[in-house]
């Protein structure tokens, strides 16, 4: 005899430790099965886009740090590229190499956080998260050497970076890259062959590439469904056209595939950094103040630049009316757009998979709400 159950509506969040920030979901369950999900966000809204309208172009760099706070360097990079396009600034080579190194390190850090927390959500309490965080700590130490801050870097300036890397940075980077590879090997040995991880992640929250493309989802989520789309390869910005790297694809498009793609991308990022270190040459790190003054007045117009962020296409759209502050700034936040398919991924799944799926999407509420 079937047990008659009644659907129950449960509020998850906003203050829930597994929601990676202040995110709320209204979930309807029928027994263990998810019938409906309604994501509700906006709890972390700080009005960054509006605040940008009354700050000068250099000051806005500090706002972009706080959007996706686990990948500040990538936000900096996307914003600075938009400013450079808007104002027609020619970046200096060493500055570009340095910011590529910094942003690839940040991608590694962000993917490590995503992987660590995904495994934490799976129930591997502590251990893998600590391994991932230990490596991230090294990267943050390197950021401290570069720019004096660990999370809110504000390292980039229009045309380059504000200061050259100190001498002790290069040996630390070399050691750090080896450590990252070692940790990734360990994580893979620890988890990629683990039956418990397999049974929890394989075949859950499967989504087709067509759905992903229709929802304009990008980044590791799209690559986990077998679509070869990486802006570093498709529309190279900075000096990515002088770098060779592989795009790692998986075709399963389930939670495991998303985890796998992130882990492989960390390896590719390490390769990219090594190539950058080989090609970097001495020189100034930012244009002189005669070329790029502190107070930039771009001509009236607009510019949109997108980069491959850690979570997908991260774009900045700037409109200038010729003044010292942008008339309008809009951010194409990859987390927000990746969130849109959460409902389709979850419906029909089990309650236990809810947070695993949520973790594998890798959301950052700071970026969703801005």
């Amino acid at each position: 005899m079937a047990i008659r159950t009644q659907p129950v509506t449960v509020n998850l969040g906003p203050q829930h430790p597994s929601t990676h920030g202040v995110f709320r979901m209204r979930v309807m369950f029928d027994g263990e099965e998810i019938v409906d999900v309604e994501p509700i966000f906006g709890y972390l809204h700080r009005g960054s886009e509006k605040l940008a309208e009354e700050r000068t172009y250099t000051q806005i760099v500090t706002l972009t740090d706080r959007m996706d706070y686990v990948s500040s360097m990538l936000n900096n990079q996307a914003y600075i590229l938009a400013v450079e396009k808007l104002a027609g600034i020619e970046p200096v080579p060493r500055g570009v190499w340095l910011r590529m190194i910094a942003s690839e390190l940040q991608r590694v850090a962000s993917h490590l956080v995503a992987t660590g927390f995904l495994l934490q959500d799976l129930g591997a309490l502590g251990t893998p998260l600590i391994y991932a965080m230990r490596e991230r700590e090294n990267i943050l130490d390197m950021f401290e050497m570069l720019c004096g801050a660990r999370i809110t870097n504000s390292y980039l300036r229009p045309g380059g970076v504000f200061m050259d890397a100190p001498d002790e940075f290069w040996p630390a980077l070399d050691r750090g890259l080896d450590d990252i590879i070692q940790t990734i090997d360990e994580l893979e040995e620890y988890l990629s062959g683990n039956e418990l991880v397999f049974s929890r992640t394989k075949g859950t929250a499967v989504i087709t590439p067509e759905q992903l493309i229709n929802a304009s989802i990008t980044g590791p989520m799209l690559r986990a469904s077998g679509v070869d789309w990486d802006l570093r390869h498709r529309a190279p910005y900075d000096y990515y056209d002088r770098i060779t790297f592989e795009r790692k694809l998986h075709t399963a498009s389930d939670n495991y595939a998303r985890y796998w793609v992130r882990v492989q991308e960390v390896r590719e990022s390490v390769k990219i950094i090594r190539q950058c270190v080989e090609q970097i040459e001495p020189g100034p790190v930012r244009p002189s103040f005669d070329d790029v003054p502190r107070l930039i007045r771009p001509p009236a117009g607009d510019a949109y630049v997108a980069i491959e962020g850690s979570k997908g296409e991260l774009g900045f759209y700037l409109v200038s009316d010729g003044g010292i502050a942008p008339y309008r700034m809009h951010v194409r936040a990859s987390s927000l757009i990746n969130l849109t398919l959460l409902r389709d991924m979850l419906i029909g799944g089990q309650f236990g998979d809810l947070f695993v799926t949520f973790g594998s999407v890798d959301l950052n509420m700071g970026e969703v709400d801005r």
Partner: protein
Amino acid sequence: MIGLGLPRGFLVTLKNFMRPAVTEQYPDRHVGLIGAARDAGMNPFQFLVKKPGDSLKAIAGLATVPVAVKQSSRFRGNEFTFFEDRCTACASCAKYCPLGIIEIVSIPGKIDAQEGESYKLEVFDIDIGRCMFCGLCVEACPYDALHMGTSFERSKYVRDELIITKEELNAAPKRPSSFYRPQFEENAFDPFKETIDDYHDAGRHERPSDEDLKKKWVDER
């Protein structure tokens, strides 16, 4: 192979279990007898004889010693370092701050001003309760008068106490961070060990010679 994943995973955990710990204790670290004696500057036997109470505590594992956190010399900390003698009250820092939290009041130039007294700084307040330590003010300072500090322990119960004034800045030990100040890195200045007492040492440039000034302002125009 199915069934081998788990033991392999536990092997990794075991390997990590043997590795030295990476956790850093803050603000104090528990030490045994030897550590406590070293902190007091004695050898363990002297320590046992001279401070039996402390030794007992150390043996019981209750003794703690303060920990110096590993920081980069570029660390953007609070407690800005400020050299009033270098400051011209140009207020670039205040204009460049994204939050507008630097307050500068200067006595304007008088008609019969004597040399060196035309602009005098009267108020220089930084509300570091709202500061985000972005360093843009330091980047803007053309005379290297304002530097980031290197400390980070400044919790207070009242927000008002977080406004640091000119007097407080002047009285604080001068441990500038080398953020945006390459001259400190060139001189291998270590803000965690030394201080800068003479304001001349904090500068980026030599004072330009009269010929240079003439070349720049007269000949090239």
